[in-house]
């Protein structure tokens, strides 16, 4: 069960011809797929397209009615390989994943898919996670399109444009027998907008039809000599067909006046930011009517030579707005101008930053600089030579004051105690080389834990420690891998590799029952029943199957003492070969989403429910914050006491505490202090509870009164 339910939203997927669809970009893409008669869809979750997978998972009834097959692929490579269904059969298929991490994983399949080509339209929707808030490296999907010779669409970021891009994508793929990538940036995926819907279409051929009528064509298989012919076909047939389609259908758009001394070329995804900058420079209105000729590339690969050269006619200079590095588009355009012997000056990264996100301010500064230099006559006097704002009070710099707030473990996260235990083991046995993986557990690299030296890819944590296998060394490496990464490819690349190479290191599999960082999607080892997928396959069994001899399973990660002892044993045992610890507890975010409403209902219905919460005795806490250096839990924080005798703030637990137990366990395992207490509130107590409580209360009250009668009692002491 995913973190967010789209059960309500998926009803919008049933909208018919002429009805208005309102919602998120990602949902609009899903609707567009159905309108295009897609036959099968698959993918792997990850921001910003996780919701696309969640929507599809929640929409299985609708997909079923239309005869559309949905696959929650094991990895991006799987998802791309799945598109092989469109090689011989005229079935439209779509795969989706996060780029560029997913595109990297998918590369092998992508290359083979692109070589043989496709018969049915094959669309790869890549969610671009670039710029602010991104969790991955800043690479470009563009390079993948170029190296595999697949086409890349980058539509303007509004719902009608992206829906249209899906439609064009399938047709373009079919006319050019080439897979097409559709790139949507993160904000575009989450943009809330509207478009006019069309009826959903049943696929002309379903995967069931294809299974019953198998076809093959040796010419489509990637093996010489066919693969040599594919290379020729790519340039002789497929490329011209694509160029032709893009030109004829006007996929790229022109705005503004036909003539002008300057012009701006941009990726479709940059359009809104360019218009906003032009608005602020007084050169465009609210609806994008502009005084500067614009050439908008909704298809960024392949580029259309004559379209571009025509745009440049009569212009002294043209600016290319291309986010990302290297500047492939700018280079290609420069070559076109050069070969055509044109005198138009092409500029791009001279005015725009070479790398990084093109934010509003960047765009305003860069376009302003370009126009001031190349076409000052377009600008009004005050924009041409702005007077520096003077006289106003200088705003103090807060960068030294405002603390950074990177993402971290949630309240009650079951991974926190794993890293608290690791930190405690390191305090005892010294520092170790720790290899991290991709997933929530990577937050361990940040304070307060600061554990982990590298992250090399999904499921590659233990693989990235594989060189550290030296019997003469006194210490072992520790590597982490999450359950998501484990099933993605960690089982073979990390565990299998460690067994085969007799790696002596320690591997911790962080099992939280979901692919949690991407939004809580189910995976093989999820404990819940999933209506359409097969779950409850234990990780431990898979590891045993790979041949691991030293395997420990901790079924409650909050047991810090046990975690600590097990890790210590793994680091010190005489046993050879990989030492694997599977640490399992349910992702608290998902658990709370699932259980909280049930618990509240049960309390309302009068059932006996015990609800735990932690607290701190503020007069026992000395304000050293040692507990926080082993936690970082958002609900464990500091507060000032109104007591001049005390200088430092004490620990305090707020009402968001879910009573996971980490505080108490850590206080115990690290021998910190006795200030923590767990308060279990028994709602709707039974008669026996009440009786016992009364009896205990009587004795305790007696003892308390006895002592308090004999001493001075200060008010609110």
């Amino acid at each position, binding site marked *: 069960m995913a973190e967010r339910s789209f059960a309500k939203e998926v009803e919008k997927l049933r909208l018919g011809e002429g009805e208005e669809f309102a919602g998120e970009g990602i949902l609009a893409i899903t609707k567009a797929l159905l309108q295009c008669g897609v036959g099968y869809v698959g993918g792997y979750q990850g921001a910003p397209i996780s919701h696309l997978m969640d929507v599809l998972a929640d929409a299985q009834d609708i997909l079923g009615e239309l005869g559309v097959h949905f696959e929650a692929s094991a990895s991006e490579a799987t998802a791309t390989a799945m598109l092989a269904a469109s090689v011989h059969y005229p079935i439209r298929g779509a795969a989706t994943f996060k780029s560029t991490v997913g595109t990297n994983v998918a590369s092998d399949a992508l290359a083979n898919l692109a070589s043989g080509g496709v018969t049915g339209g094959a669309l790869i929707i890549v969610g671009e996670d670039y710029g602010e808030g991104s969790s991955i490296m800043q690479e470009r999907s563009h390079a993948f399109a170029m190296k595999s010779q697949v086409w890349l669409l980058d539509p303007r970021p509004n719902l009608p444009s992206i829906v249209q891009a899906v439609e064009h994508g399938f047709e373009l793929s079919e006319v050019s027998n080439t897979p097409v990538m559709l790139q949507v940036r993160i904000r575009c995926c989450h943009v809330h907008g509207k478009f006019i819907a069309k009826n959903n279409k049943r696929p002309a051929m379903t995967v069931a039809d294809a299974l019953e009528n198998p076809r093959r064509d040796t010419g489509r298989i990637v093996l010489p000599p066919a693969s040599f012919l594919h290379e020729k076909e790519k340039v002789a047939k497929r490329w011209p067909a694509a160029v032709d389609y893009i030109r004829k259908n006007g996929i790229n758009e022109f705005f503004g006046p036909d003539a002008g001394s300057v012009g701006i070329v941009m990726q479709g995804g940059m359009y809104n930011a360019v218009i906003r900058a032009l608005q602020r420079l007084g050169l465009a*209105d609210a609806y994008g009517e502009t005084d500067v000729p614009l050439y908008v590339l909704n298809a960024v690969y392949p580029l259309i030579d004559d379209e571009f050269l025509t745009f440049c006619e009569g212009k002294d200079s043209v600016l290319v707005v291309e986010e990302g590095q290297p500047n492939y588009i700018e280079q290609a355009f420069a070559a076109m101008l050069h070969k055509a012997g044109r005198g138009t000056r092409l500029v791009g990264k001279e005015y725009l930053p070479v790398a990084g996100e093109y934010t509003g301010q960047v765009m305003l500064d860069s376009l302003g600089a370009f126009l001031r230099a190349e076409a000052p006559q377009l600008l009004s006097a005050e924009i041409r030579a702005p007077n520096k704002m003077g006289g106003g009070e200088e705003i103090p710099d807060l960068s030294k004051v405002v603390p950074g707030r990177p993402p971290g473990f949630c309240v009650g996260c079951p991974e926190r105690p794993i890293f608290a235990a690791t930190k405690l083991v390191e305090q005892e046995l010294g520092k170790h080389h720790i290899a991290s993986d991709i997933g929530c557990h990577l937050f361990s690299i940040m304070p307060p834990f600061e554990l982990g030296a590298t992250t090399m890819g999904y499921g590659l944590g233990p693989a990235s420690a594989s060189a550290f296998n030296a019997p003469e060394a006194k210490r072992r490496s520790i590597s982490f891998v999450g359950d998501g990464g484990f099933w993605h490819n960690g089982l073979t690349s990390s565990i299998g590799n460690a067994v085969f190479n007799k790696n002596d290191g320690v591997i911790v599999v962080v099992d939280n029952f979901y692919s949690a960082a991407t939004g809580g999607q189910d995976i093989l080892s999820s404990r819940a029943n999933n209506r359409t997928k097969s779950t409850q396959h234990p990780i431990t069994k898979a590891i045993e199957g790979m041949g691991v001899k030293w395997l420990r399973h901790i079924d409650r990660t909050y047991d810090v003492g046990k975690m600590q002892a097990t890790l210590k044993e793994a680091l010190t045992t005489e046993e050879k070969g990989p030492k694997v610890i599977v640490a399992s507890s349910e992702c608290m975010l998902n658990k709370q989403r699932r259980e909280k409403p049930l618990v509240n209902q049960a309390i309302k219905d009068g059932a006996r429910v015990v609800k735990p919460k932690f607290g701190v005795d503020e007069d026992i806490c000395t304000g050293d914050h040692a507990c926080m250096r082993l936690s970082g839990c958002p609900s464990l924080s500091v507060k000032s006491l109104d007591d001049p005798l005390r200088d430092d703030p004490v620990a305090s637990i707020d009402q968001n505490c879910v009573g996971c137990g980490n505080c108490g366990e850590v206080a115990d395992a690290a021998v910190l202090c006795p200030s923590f207490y767990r308060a279990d509130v028994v709602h709707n107590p039974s008669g026996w509870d009440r009786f016992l409580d009364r009896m205990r209360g009587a004795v*305790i009250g007696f003892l308390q009164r006895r002592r308090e009668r004999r001493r001075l009692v200060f008010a609110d002491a």
Partner: protein
Amino acid sequence: MLDIVSSMRDVPARGDGGVIKIAILAVGGQGGGVLSDWIVDVAERNGYLAQSTSVAGVAQRTGATIYYIEMCPDKGRLPVFALSPSQGDVDVLVAAELMEAGRAIMRGFVTPDKTTLIASSHRIAAVSEKIEPGDGRASSAKVRETAELASKRFIAFDMEKIAVQNGSVVSSSLFGALAGSSVLPFPRETYEATISASGRGVKASLAAFGGGYNGARGRGVEITHPVVPGGPDDQAAAHSPVSSATAADGAEPVENNGPDVEGPRRLVAGWQELTARIEEMPVPVRDMALRGLRKVVDYQDMRYGEEYLDRLDRALMLDAEEQGYALSIAAAKHLANALCYDDMIRVADLKTRSTRGARVRREVGVKDDAILQTTEYFHPRVEEFCGAMPATIGSYIENRPKLSAFIDRRINKGRRIRTDSFTGFAMLWMIGGMRRWRRGLLRHRVEQAHLDRWYDLALATVPKDYALAVEILNTRRLIKGYSDTHVRARSKFDRVLSALPMLKGRPDAADWLRRLREAALKDEKGDMLDGALKTVATLGD
């Protein structure tokens, strides 16, 4: 002016055509997404076109996140909305926490010509603020001052408190504050209709909305100087009578005219004798001395209070009015803390008091019919065991490593004690009762010796360097924590004072000692302190 505007209406004006731009900065989990959906909904209800975007993903996991909304009246044509906020071009900035308001200012999203800044003034401490052994919290006051300068209008009050009081989330009270600010041209009812249509927790959300609405209009909450329990610079404010009334966290202000006290007549009479001694002290010292006395008597007994005052008198004798009695005030404070060292007896005593049970019920929010069960986490070691033994036996064991190790193996483990049960409570109650024998126990002897060394050192320094003597007393702040943490604290304390010979005779010795203490509070192991000590070592060169 109006004429110009109307005459230009036919020719589309260059510019964004009056698009309203709203950015929301929140901490993951604060409901920023809900708030942004609500704003879009209320805009659409009022005939506006609106677009919202966000960057979801891992950033939501407790990190800072940003949501962005643009809107304009629907004139039948879709405008080009931007997908992210631009510096200097944001009309309304909603910050769901005070430092996020600071972050927005830092990023240029708040400008004096344009931006209405609506911020909840409460603090959610970042991890970096929490892990310092001292007080690592950022200065709220600085952010507030800057916000006043940086924004066109600054609306700030504790919207989290309003939300919690109404059983809702801060997004509801923020939505109320947005409505109350009237910065958007929408009537209140339409906002409420939006909440009602959302269908979940409507009643609580509406109540919190109302609180936020009133707050933004200056009703029901103090707007001009809302008190944020926060950074060190707020502490001074927190002690002023005005602000302590509004201070959050339920910390009750302490009356200065002496605490209410109850008890056997003999003890009350004794207490009055002791407080009479304080009445004779110079006025500036009295408050701290009274607080200290109360803590000490509460910790042990009346005689302990007498000893406390005797010690304090030694400082007073050396003190002078022109120094503002800084020495005696520091002595009153740190002597009390030093005398009330944290031992098992103290912990057991505090955990078995009737007031404690009541406080836990209040903090946890136990309703009358529900039953509370309390589990305490203890982890005694041989050190604690010996400390709680009569001094001779305790040091006998400590001096025999094998015996110590043997005992440690038997007792060194985590113990969970249910203080709501007969046995658990009785056990702690009895340990708390060991108070009367405390003076004979090993721990007491160790602590007294340590206290005397430190106090004698400070007082002996007074004739040579008054300020340095005060700082020696203040070094006591470093001693805190239990078990290993306590050992580390002691070590920092010793390391700081180890600089004294190097500082001898320097006019800025006090200043250096203060710096060393502050460095010691920056990190766990004292790395900063070691660096500072190296600097001190080079001072003589």
